[in-house]
């Protein structure tokens, strides 16, 4: 293909079709964070558009989980700006809680409320934050649990479920808040191998339905199939940003080439 006048990187590849993407939804500007002397996030600039599925990959310790957690301020940042849907993330208090309600989060360790049934896990936010009635919240929760395939587990406690089932409940719990964007912090890393796909299937379905998603994962298959864009992080920096096609077949940086050679050889 001939794209005269474009940057060298575009020479071999068509630009990604991004016509389905909307306005910027999550914006990070010059974000820095330190853990003591360790500079875990270094001048991060990133924009995620409405409907976009962004996959963040990188070696462990690269800062990708911290990045994910900083977006709903489970981690504070030392400088820079993060805004969701045009609103800067408030530092604390009620406004922060309100903004967090619009940002779904799925954790590596599921973090379902251990003392509550599956159904109560999903209805807690809608009832206590959104003010839904018990019956409305439960009807919606059962619909969502059905959608992720665990409706028949609604009366059980989290510890009675398999990891894959727990993680799908956690996704339903996030969805119940009707979030504008969902963050996935290594959602399959704590799962037994045979349960990974049941969770990835749900996530792919969400992606197809147009949910804006930021996914930190080691699942390259998911990145290939569902991502609009891949961000590669190393040592607290965004080293590379590309379409999955471009990133997996023609990584530009040595760090990315090295990383991919290590994980794709088996």
């Amino acid at each position, binding site marked *: 293909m001939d794209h005269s006048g474009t940057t060298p990187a575009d020479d071999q590849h068509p630009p990604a079709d991004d016509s389905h993407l909307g306005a910027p939804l999550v914006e990070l500007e010059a974000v820095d964070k330190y853990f003591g002397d360790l500079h875990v996030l270094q001048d991060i600039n990133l924009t995620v558009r409405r409907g976009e599925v962004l996959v963040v990959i990188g070696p462990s310790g690269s800062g990708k989980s911290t990045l994910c957690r900083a977006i709903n301020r489970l981690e504070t940042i030392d400088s820079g700006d993060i805004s969701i849907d045009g609103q800067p993330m408030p530092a604390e208090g009620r406004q922060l809680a309100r903004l967090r309600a619009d940002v779904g989060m799925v954790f590596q360790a599921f973090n379902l409320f251990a003392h509550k049934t599956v159904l109560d896990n999903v209805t*807690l936010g809608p009832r206590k934050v959104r003010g839904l009635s018990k019956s409305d919240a439960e009807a919606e929760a059962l619909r969502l649990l059905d959608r992720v395939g665990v409706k028949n587990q609604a009366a059980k406690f989290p510890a009675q479920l398999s990891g894959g089932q727990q993680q799908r409940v956690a996704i339903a719990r996030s969805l119940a808040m009707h979030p504008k964007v969902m963050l996935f912090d290594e959602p399959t890393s704590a799962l037994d191998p045979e349960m990974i796909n049941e969770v990835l299937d749900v996530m792919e379905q969400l992606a197809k339905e147009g949910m804006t998603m930021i996914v930190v994962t080691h699942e390259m298959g998911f990145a290939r199939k569902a991502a609009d864009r891949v961000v590669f992080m190393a040592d607290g920096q965004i080293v590379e940003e590309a379409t999955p096609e471009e990133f997996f077949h023609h990584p530009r940086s040595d760090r990315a080439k090295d990383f991919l050679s290590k994980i794709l050889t088996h």
Partner: protein
Amino acid sequence: MEEYLDIVRQYDVLGAFWVNIQLAFWAALLSLALGSVLALFRISPIGSLQWAGSAYVTILRNTPLTIIMVFMVLGAWGQLELTLATDFDLNFFWLAVVGLSIYHAAFVCEAIRSGVNTVPVGQAEAARSIGLSFLPSARLVILPQAFRGAIAPLGNVLIALIKNTTVAAAASVATETSSVMRTMIEFRPDYIYAIFFTFAIGYVILVTPVGLLSTSFSRRLAVAR
């Protein structure tokens, strides 16, 4: 034997135990309420509340109970004229309850805090991520699990509290067990061993079920993870 039972009846030993049970009951309720608030202070994100909570615990936990009880009578009532009931004896009873409560609240606070430590940090993060602010996430997610993880230490506080109700003697509650025991020994020194064992065994009977129950509840109510 007949004479021993007469003495027990004459000095109303069961009535004396009933006074201590009432002291323990009200002090348990009040110290649980106050201790929960203090625990909330200590885990809150607000620095001044954390400071107030830990200052309270440090001071009250490290003050002898006898001194607190004497203060309740000589200081709070005698000087500050704090009156909790118009009836003279009942006033001392409630002053003793307050003294026991403010002292044991410090231990309740620490027991609940140890319960909070059994709740993984991810639970709080999940609560925050669905938009719950500090108080709702404490009330709906953290404290329910913390209490269930704190049953055994709370049981220990209750055991200490029941036995410490005898210090109410220092707050002029003359009808409670240790005061009654002293009177009995004074007037019937010929029965000193019998009297002593009556009270000792009475407390063992009173306190043992608390330990057994708290162990069984802490197992049964443990949060499965």
